[in-house]
């Protein structure tokens, strides 16, 4: 089977042509670096994405704290993770890197704060 995918490992966004037989990758072309085939392997059989969003924070100078998963999560868990993020709320202070939710939705990734907000 042939599949065209765009590699998202870096901003170059190479257009990859991938050949696979549903079990293994046969060939990858179009990549500018060695991250391409690694990405192709993942994308074809177990696609993953980093999820970024905001959660409500009380007691800081702004109402929202930006967050992200510290690793990419399985694509089919993406919306479940988003729904879980909707429910979350924290109190200031928050520090960049704080773990807001450990192993969110059993995805293997932690949800971390991406900004430091002091208590006002």
């Amino acid at each position, binding site marked *: 089977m042939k599949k065209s995918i765009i590699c998202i490992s870096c901003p170059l966004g190479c257009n990859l042509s991938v050949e696979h037989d549903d079990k293994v990758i046969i060939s990858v072309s179009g990549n500018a670096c060695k991250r391409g085939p690694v990405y192709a392997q993942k994308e074809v059989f177990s696609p993953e994405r980093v999820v970024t969003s905001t959660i409500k924070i009380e007691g800081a100078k702004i109402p929202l704290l930006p967050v992200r998963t510290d690793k990419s999560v399985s694509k089919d868990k993406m919306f479940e993770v988003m729904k879980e993020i*909707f429910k*979350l709320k924290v109190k200031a202070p928050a520090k960049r890197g704080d773990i807001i939710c450990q192993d969110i939705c059993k995805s293997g990734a932690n949800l971390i704060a991406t900004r430091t907000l002091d208590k006002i």
Partner: protein
Amino acid sequence: MKNDFQVIVIGCGVVGASIARELSRFDVKVAILEKEADVSFGTSKANSGIIHAGFHSTKGTLMARFVVPGNRKFDRLCDELEFPFERRGELMVAFDDNELRILQTYYKMGLDNKVPYMDLIGKERVLEMEPNVNPEVEGALYAPTAGIICPYEYCFSLTSNAQENGVELFLNKKVTWIGKQGNGKFEIETEDGSRFTSDYIVNAAGLYSDEIAKYVGITNFRIVPRKGEEYLLDRRVGKLIHRVIFPCPTSTSKGMLVIPTVDGPVMVGPTARDIEDKDDWATTRDGLKEVFTHAQRMVPSVKTSDIITSFVGLRPAAVGNNGDFIIGTTTVPGFINAAGIQSPGLTASPAIAEHIREVINKEGLRMELKPHFNPKRRRVASKVRHMLENRQYSQYGEIVKKDKTYSKLVCRCENVTEAEIVEAIRDGHTTLDGIKFATRAGTGRCQAGFCTTRVMEILHKETGIPFEQITKKGKGSEIAPYPIKKGGVE
């Protein structure tokens, strides 16, 4: 009784506002009913802002009767109400012999209307005055008494001063029914269920003045919206022309003009197209092409790449009346029309207002001058903006020491500080468009990209209106209507 008045003015565009302000000089109980979320939100918001010299109006019409007296009153009004106004003068330019003959016709019309100081000038003088006019120009009719004004600031200033002198303004009150009580008073019902009573009604409802008249059984005129598209050009081309440049007119309009504005940018337009829908405020591709073709004929360096925004105005053209104003008493005692006011309505408005006041007086309403009438309206914050614009930094620095709200810049493009925004909000402008018209915040190059959230924060702080309910121009036009369940403004 609470909502009982002697005169109710329906519609608060420049006409309604002028009338209300004129009436506020007298000891008369007056109210204005305006259907939108702010005044000047109908035809008046899209006015070209020209105070005409008056040679366009045909002798014998009401337009001709009121245009020159109206024009004359603007210096005093400007002094009293502090709205931006400059007597720049206007040029009607001609490019061939036929057009030169047309100039002669308008010169005579001007003489008939007693337009002062007009002059027929030749090519050299035109180009000396306005070097950016097409060098193929052959001559022009010059009228130095024409001027430029900011129409909505004018309307706001009239309304504000009227209110200060006792007139009550009711916004969001669309009139849905008018009847007569046993005692001869009018009874007015509005869309939200409010009721008002009044001895006299002045119908200044612009596009909808025919529908208001229908409520009392008057059906002898119909208002047809005549659409005009205008394009605003970046202020960097503001120096292109100093005076208002007119072409020789067509049968339906004064033509597409090149208009300097008091604030700086240049406007081109308007088109003139009769339409059916009183709610069709859309600019069109064809309109753009039409405007620029005609404008470039007069001022060749006008370019579409200079456009910063565009808008539509709908003139309330009265059908079945030779397109003249419909002013004065009607078959219904107490119901007075100030309808069908298209160009030169803005110019004529002060004279129309005086006339309407006289009419009401003659109809039987006793009017004594108010001893404590305050003609002066003072806006403080905009003066400070002028200091900034004129680089008077030490003066500005002194003011900032006393009032910190002058040190927060809300609109970067137009130098509008928090103080000005707060002043506008306290003056009754609680929509982004209303604040925009009152302060110019949002009219510059970035078209409110930077200031929108800042203005919304100040509005929320001053009025308590929840962030998600802040509108562009009234209910239904909320900027950010959906709070994310987890978010909110502090």
